[in-house]
């Protein structure tokens, strides 16, 4: 689903590469934690997957597309297949829960009828059926993140990218979010989650890829956050 082959990314004004000779293969339906300190290259990895940046060298395949040769006008096609969730939720404050989720479908050209059917369904999945007409300001952080996940998932993307989705949430709320991501993963969506949250990584026991200074220093099936011994 996501395949990096000897990918190096050096930003224009940097002297050191942000990612250096990284090879990673994430299969369809996998759940992968991406861990590492700030500046280790996690964000660069995610930006490359979304093609917000292009690799300096190496090849990247995402959802069957070679991102090195993908033309700019086809980038939207890629992003339709990759849902994204962020630490800061990125909801539209003037729109209700329904409208925020519907926004994604509107943008993708769905009809009103489809939207009226799909949005409540997905909002129910994330557990906010009672709050369809609330605005983000009236919701807790955890609830806002659920809305963001609903928005990312409503178009049923093949891949869900989550960049520190629990970074702003307390531990109890975080567990709820993780259960939701796990559920989405079990429906067949590949999930890549960058995180600092060691307790979550340790509890979930999923594949862990650790980056340090742009290198992959660990790739473990059923891993934990750090080496225990």
């Amino acid at each position, binding site marked *: 689903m996501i395949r990096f082959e000897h990918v190096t990314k050096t930003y224009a004004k940097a002297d050191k590469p942000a990612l250096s000779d990284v090879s990673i293969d994430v299969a369809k339906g996998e759940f992968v934690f991406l861990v590492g300190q700030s500046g280790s290259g996690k964000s660069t990895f995610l930006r490359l997957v979304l093609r917000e940046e292009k690799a300096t060298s190496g090849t990247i395949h995402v959802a069957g597309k070679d991102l090195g040769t993908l033309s700019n*006008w086809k980038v*939207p*096609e*890629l*992003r339709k297949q990759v849902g994204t969730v962020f630490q800061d939720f*990125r909801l539209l404050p003037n729109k209700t829960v329904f409208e925020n989720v519907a926004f994604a479908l509107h943008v*993708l050209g769905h009809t*009103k009828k489809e939207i009226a059917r799909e949005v409540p369904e997905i909002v129910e999945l994330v557990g906010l059926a009672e709050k369809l007409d609330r605005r983000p300001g009236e919701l807790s952080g955890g609830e806002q993140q659920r809305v963001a996940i609903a928005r*990312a998932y409503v*178009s049923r993307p093949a891949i869900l990218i989550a960049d520190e989705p629990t970074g702003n949430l307390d531990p109890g709320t975080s567990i709820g979010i993780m259960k939701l991501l796990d559920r989405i993963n079990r429906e067949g969506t590949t999930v890549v989650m960058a995180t600092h949250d060691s307790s979550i990584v340790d509890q979930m026991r999923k594949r862990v890829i650790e980056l340090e200074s742009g290198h992959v220093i660990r790739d473990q099936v059923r891993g934990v956050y750090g080496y225990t011994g």
Partner: protein
Amino acid sequence: MRAGFVMSEVGIGLRRNLTMTFAVVITVAISLSLLGIGLLSNSQVRTMKDYWYDKIEVSIFLCGPLSETPSCAGGPVTAEQRLEIQQDLQELPVVQTVYYESQSEAYQRFQERFKDSAIAQNVTVDQLPESFRVKLKDPTEFAVVESAFSGRPGVDVVQDQRAILEKFFSLLNVLRDGALVIGLASVLTAALLISNTLRIAAYNRRRETTVMKLVGASSFSIQLPFLLEGLFAAIVGWGISTGILSGLKYVVDERIAPLLTFTNFFTWNDVWVASAYLLLTGVVVSGFASVLTLRKYLKV
């Protein structure tokens, strides 16, 4: 994206930025009006040319006792010379009509024109020259007549009334060009304002555009609402400017035309033609300003 959704986003954008929208509409209205005034002054100059060129004549003054030009060295024009000149004139293809004005007719006309002036009392019939008044099919063909008759025995002077009007028209041309330049400059200003406004609008709605990018909207569908906002402002501005030009036409017809009877004025048709050009200008300029700005600030 569906049209209804795009329109609702456009509506939100315009309302959220109401004062800026208002500023853009007014600026577009004023600049298009100025440009329209330039276009109408062009029509006006053309109308005046048509009006006046239709009335002007070439005068061939014949030698009289007071003439001093070399071609009059043989004394006042003779009857044969006069007849020959008249026949030759009538044979010229560029000539439409020829009218002979005798000394006594010239005297009557002079008395008529200057009846309130002391000069009328001091002029006698034999002081005024007799002449042929020639109307040309095309008033610009004066040179043909002049080369045929200037310096011919019996002909004192060939005078083109157009030469007098030309000075007047070259003045009007300068005014017209000035109006067009001011119009174009203000259209440029409007374009820059549209560009800046869209930049602010893009910044204000960066949350929306980020989300649109993330869920896979194309550049075009992200830019479309902004483009339509620019276009909307341009079209409303154009509507106002057409109103202003119609108002101008009304004032000219009702207030100015009765006072200035020596010319015709631009027609309603000229107003509509100018308005069509303004619509084209408004749409093209706002479209260009929008696309250039958005390409810079709303990259996917």
